C-alpha cells in the first residue's frame, strides 16, 4: 500500500486557549498546511473518539483556531485534560470551505448565529479589510450577552464594517440590541440587493428564516451561500453519515450555494 492512511491523525501542539464562555473555548493549534475558513478538522482523542470542528481562524503557516463547545465525550475530554503545550491529534482539513473572493467585491451580508460565527470568522475578517468595508453588513446573534464569542473581534469588526450585534434575550438593563438576527434583515441599507452576496451560517431554523428574509429583500438564490455545519463523522466521504440526497456534506460542502442546498432535503 503506497497511499497514506487518511485515518491516521497527526500531532498538533496547543499554542493557546481562549476562554469565551465556560462552555466555549478556542484552541489555537499548530498547523502549517493549506486551509480555508469553513473547512473543518477532526479532533481525534484516543479512547474518546473524534469530533468534527470547523476552523474559526487561520494564522498562515503557524496555526488554526478551533472553537469548541463542550457538549460531548470528545470535547469534554479536551476541556478536562488538555492545556497549552499539550499535543492533540487532528485529521484534516476537510470540506470545501468558503471562497472569500466571492464576497470581497460589492455589497455583502453575513448572517451568523451562535457557534455559526466560527466558520465565517475568517470571512468577516477578510471583509473587514476590503476597501469598501462599509458595504459589508454583518449580523451576528448570540443567545444571551454571556454567550458571546470572539469579543475582541466584535470590537474590531464594529470599527471596520457595518456590524449588527444582537442577542436573543438579555437580563434587564442590557443596552445592546435584543432580537433574532432575522429582525435586522429587512432594514439593511443595501443599494442593490439583487447583486449583493450573502453568507448564512447557524442553527437550521435560523438559517431557514434568514434565507427567507434575504430572498424577500430581493437577493438572488445564486448569490446566497450557506454552511451545513452538522453531523460529520469520517470527513472522507466513506462513513455515509453526512449524506443528503446525492451530496456528501464532508466532500461537497459544508459550504453550498443556496440554489443547490435548497433542494437538499433531509
Amino acid at each position: 500500500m503506497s497511499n497514506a492512511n487518511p485515518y491516521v491523525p497527526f500531532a498538533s501542539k496547543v499554542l493557546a486557549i481562549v476562554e469565551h464562555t465556560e462552555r466555549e473555548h478556542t484552541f489555537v493549534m499548530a498547523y502549517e498546511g493549506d486551509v480555508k475558513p469553513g473547512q473543518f478538522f477532526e479532533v481525534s482523542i484516543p479512547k474518546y473518539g473524534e469530533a468534527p470542528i470547523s476552523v474559526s481562524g487561520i494564522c498562515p503557516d503557524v496555526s488554526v483556531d478551533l472553537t469548541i463547545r463542550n457538549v460531548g465525550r470528545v470535547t469534554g475530554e479536551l476541556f478536562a485534560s488538555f492545556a497549552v503545550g499539550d499535543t492533540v491529534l487532528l485529521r484534516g482539513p476537510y470540506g470545501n470551505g468558503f471562497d472569500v473572493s466571492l464576497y470581497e467585491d460589492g455589497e455583502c451580508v453575513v448572517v451568523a448565529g451562535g457557534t455559526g460565527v466560527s466558520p465565517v470568522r475568517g470571512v468577516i475578517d477578510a471583509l473587514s479589510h476590503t476597501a469598501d468595508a462599509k458595504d459589508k453588513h454583518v449580523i451576528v446573534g448570540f443567545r444571551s450577552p454571556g454567550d458571546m464569542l470572539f469579543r475582541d473581534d466584535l470590537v474590531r469588526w464594529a470599527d471596520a464594517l457595518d456590524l449588527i450585534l444582537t442577542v436573543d434575550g438579555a437580563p434587564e438593563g442590557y443596552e445592546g440590541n435584543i432580537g433574532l438576527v432575522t429582525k435586522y434583515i429587512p432594514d439593511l441599507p443595501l443599494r442593490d440587493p439583487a447583486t449583493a452576496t450573502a453568507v448564512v451560517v447557524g442553527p437550521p431554523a435560523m438559517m431557514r428564516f434568514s434565507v427567507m428574509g434575504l430572498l424577500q429583500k430581493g437577493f438572488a438564490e445564486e448569490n446566497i451561500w450557506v454552511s451545513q455545519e452538522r453531523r460529520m463523522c469520517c470527513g472522507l466521504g466513506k462513513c455515509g453519515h453526512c449524506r443528503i440526497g446525492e451530496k456528501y456534506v464532508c466532500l461537497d460542502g459544508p459550504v453550498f450555494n443556496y440554489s443547490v442546498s435548497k433542494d437538499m432535503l433531509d
Partner: protein
Amino acid sequence: MGYVLSREGLDQVLQGLGTEYRLYAPVLKMGEGRFADTDVVRYDFVTSLDQIELSKKSDYAFKELLTPLSETLFFFTEGEVKVADKDVRDVIVLLRACDLHAVKRLDQMYLANGTEKDWFYQRIRDHVRFALIGCPSSFENCFCASMGTNVAPEGWVFSLEEADGGYRCAVADGTLAGLFAEHADAEADVEPAHVVENDTKVRVPENVPTAIYKHQMWDEYTVRCLKCGRCTIACPTCTCYTMQDVFYTDNGRVGERRRVAASCMIDGYTDVAGGGQYRRTGGERMRFKVLHKVHDFRARFGYDMCVGCGRCDDICPEYISFAACVNKLADAVDALGKEVDGDE
C-alpha cells in the same frame, strides 16, 4: 475455457486452491436463522465443497469480509497510536452475479467517493478475488433482471454451478486452468448460467421530484417499520459505518478505535453533537434508504446502487417489501408528473 467436473473433482480443485487462497463462501448454519430453529445461509471460510451451500440464496451477503461488522483500526497504548494488524492472506469469494455487481458499489464508495481511498478497505480488497456462482433460476424476491445485474460483470476468475449431478465451471483466469484440467472429467464450452427474468419486477423511476419527500406513500412505513436495520445489514451495497473508541482498562490507559456497521434505519444514525436528530420516523428513514438505492447514488455515480438481490425483502420481520416500495415510488412519481401537467 470450460470444464465438467464431478463432485469429487471440484472438491479437489477447491482443496488445490486452498493451498494459495482462503475460500469464503455461503454456508448453511443450522438453527441460527431469523426465527428460533430456522436455518440461515451466511458467509464463512471453508475448506471443502461439502461446507458450501450452492442451492440457496445467502441471507447475508459476502460484504462482511470487505467491511466487517466491527473492525479494529487502531490500538492505543500510552502515547502511541498503532494501526491494527489484519489477516490479509489472499481470498477467493464465491458469489453470484448480483453480488459481484455489489462489489463495484462497495469499491465506488470506499475507493472513489472523494479524493481519499479508504486505506483499511483497500488493504483487504487488494487480496480478494471472486468466483462466480451461476444462477440457472431466480430465487424468491430477486429482481436482478430489473436492475440489470443479472449478468455478471467481468472480474471473476472462475465460475461454478451444479448441472446433471456434477458441476460446470468456466475458467477466466488462465493460471487456474491447469488445476481444473487436472481434476475435470471433460472440457466443455461453459457460459455461466444467468437469470433472464424474475417473478418480482421493479420499475425504477428515472427522476424523482423533491415533492416526493413529503408524499404520503412513506406513511405506511412509519406504522410498520421497526427501525431494526436488518435490511441494511443484509444488503450487499450498504456501506455506512460509525467510529467507536473503547477503553480496555479501568484507568483508561489502553484502548482501541473501531468502526462498526451503521444503519440509516436505526436510532442514533443522525444524532448530532449537543442534541438533535434528523429523520425520526420509519417513513422518513425508508424514504432516505430507498431513494439512495434507486436514485441518489445514480445521480452521483451514474448507475443504481441496488443490485436487486431481494435480501432486504427476505429478511424484514415486518414483511416490508423494498421492491414493492420502489414500484409505489415509480407510480407516485408518475402521478406527480400528471398533476404538474394538469396544472399547466
